[in-house]
């Protein structure tokens, strides 16, 4: 499996063209991106594609995918995503996601647990911490959020590739579109769904792994613990010296944490 082997495709759902990248063989796994939008086919996706057919969709309203005009809230987004999954011909999939992608996976799971094989939540939004707070990334702005995202940016092998270069006008435009999408879905209540904690109890039979960077300064580890407590049988793997993006900042540790769970 090499990075060049993925395909870029599109599926039309309820009149909206949804873009996705796909590669690999095996049972379906959806990787749901965070607030930064679809950053393309990453090393992580390559690793997963050795064992799964990996789908990396671009969320509706983010740069590359349409937003149906009625889609306004985060719950709308989850309901619509179940339709996307159906349209892709997937009856049951592993749902994995980071930050708002993890939140999205959790919302989809509590709505339709029967379509979820396993749930992998990485530094996920969605549950409001009791002691700490989810950092206001809108108030922090792009630079401030970037600064808070990593325990040590030098640990991120692909940092230059992902964040180092000056964005082209098209990339800048995409950033604006992505920020607008996050604002639409996550502004209020900010980055959480007050009903979600109660509904997570429904997932007691669902194999669930929660992975968190111990030093996550965007979504505090406490939120990971709340997820673990809410989902009976869920495990929480905490990666030390690691911020909000374990899959980028500590890729080896991340794969070691998820390997047994995913049967890699």
């Amino acid at each position, binding site marked *: 499996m090499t990075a060049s082997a993925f395909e870029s495709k599109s599926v039309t759902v309820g009149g909206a063209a949804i873009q996705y990248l796909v590669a690999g063989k095996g049972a379906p796994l959806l990787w749901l991106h965070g607030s930064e939008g679809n950053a393309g086919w990453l090393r992580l996706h390559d690793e997963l594609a050795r064992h799964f057919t990996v789908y990396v969709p671009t969320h509706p309203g983010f740069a590359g995918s349409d937003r149906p005009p009625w889609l306004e809230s985060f719950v709308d987004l989850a309901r619509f995503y179940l339709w996307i999954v159906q349209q892709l011909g997937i009856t049951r999939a592993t749902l994995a996601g980071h930050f708002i992608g993890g939140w999205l996976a959790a919302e989809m799971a509590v709505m339709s647990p029967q379509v979820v094989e396993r749930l992998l939540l990485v530094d996920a939004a969605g549950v409001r911490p009791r002691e700490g707070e989810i950092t206001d990334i*809108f*108030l922090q*702005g*792009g630079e*401030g959020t970037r600064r808070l995202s990593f325990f040590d940016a030098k640990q991120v092998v692909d940092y230059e590739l992902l964040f180092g270069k000056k964005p082209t006008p098209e990339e800048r*435009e995409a950033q*604006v*579109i992505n*920020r*607008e999408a*996050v*604002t*639409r879905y996550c*502004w*209020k209540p900010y980055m959480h769904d007050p009903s979600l904690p109660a509904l997570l109890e429904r997932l007691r039979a669902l194999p669930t792994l929660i992975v968190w960077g111990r030093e996550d300064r965007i979504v505090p580890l406490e939120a990971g613990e709340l997820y673990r407590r809410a989902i009976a049988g869920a495990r929480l793997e905490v990666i030390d010296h690691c911020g909000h993006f374990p899959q980028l900042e500590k890729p080896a540790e991340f794969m070691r944490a998820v390997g047994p769970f995913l049967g890699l």
Partner: protein
Amino acid sequence: MFIMRFTERPYVAYTEEDVRGSFRSAVRLTFSNSHFDPALGADLYNEYLDEYQFAEEAGFDGLMLNEHHNTPTCMGAAMNLEAAILARITQKAKIILLGNPLPIFDNPLRLAEELAEIDMISRGRLVSGFVRGTGIESWATNTNPVHNRERFEEAHDLVIKTWTQPGPFRWEGKHYQFRVVNPFVRPLQQPHPPVWIPGLGSPETLDWAARRHYPYIYLETDPQVTVQMTELYHKSAAETGYTPGPQNFGYLWRIHVQDTDEKASEVGKGFLIGNAGIGRVPMPGDFMAPAGYNSREGSKRILEQYKHSIRPDALYGGVDAAGWDAVVASNRVVVGSPKTVLRKIREGLEILRPGILGMWTNDGTIGHKDTMRCLQLMKEEVLPAVHEMGKELGLPGPFEQAP
């Protein structure tokens, strides 16, 4: 010519260091209210009301107020309260609200009621302007900026219907739902108080205002850009078979007069820290215009319009980006003796041809005493002459010729 008087009612008892110590060095939104002294605030509110009361006596046709939140640059956080007081303590001047930031109201019916009360207490002197608010207003009230324009338009439609259609009726909109719309008190002016729309020239708003024949008040926009924006308004109006005139346009202008040019120039520098705040530290762009606040197309057009402006930071900074001398030389701020000021006003009126002139007489560190002297000179030497100028240049206001 309709002439109104304006000030942002600033609070300036803080330092540049205070601003730099604020989260993201912002003078608005996150600038801590621990810097506010309510005892001083009490004095200021009363002084500002005194000034407006005297402005009526000085001969201004209108008293203009505005509203902002979480900022020392404008103490009018609850503008309708100030308007209600002016409604009672003045007799003939119009009370011009530019304007109520519609998107941040979760209950526009309450707003319709407040405005109806002001209109009745003032015996029909209310001009009800509506705005989208800056991004700060969205932040301060936690209103999703991506819905700003939709909420502006829907709240407007609801308020106008509430004023003009007998209740009870039902409203099931996208952002507002009310099953029994029936506020018992209705405005005195029929069918409803005049609506004016102030702004910086967002093309969508210009188009929207033109289609409703609402006068558009340019908030001290670049003159050249203003002329282009007026063309946009004319174009949209023409599509509805309507021909606008000077009565459809207003221009807000910083104009400060003192006995001599030297004194006026010295005192007038206070304008520089008006809506930019002490230290004139630039505001973060995403505070003033968070993601989704402007349409992507609209943002591009606004930036294009402002490219050649004297103020490259037109949206986020102060009027001072070009430096005081350049600003004064360009007529963006008019300071001087009555004679100088009258000459400059004429130059501006000839280019912009507004039927409504907003005189932003003082701001920033321009104190009460200098402001009162300015208003006195306005009364004696400026306002009568500008009214004459309006006649001579054929610039009727909206109360001389209905828009």
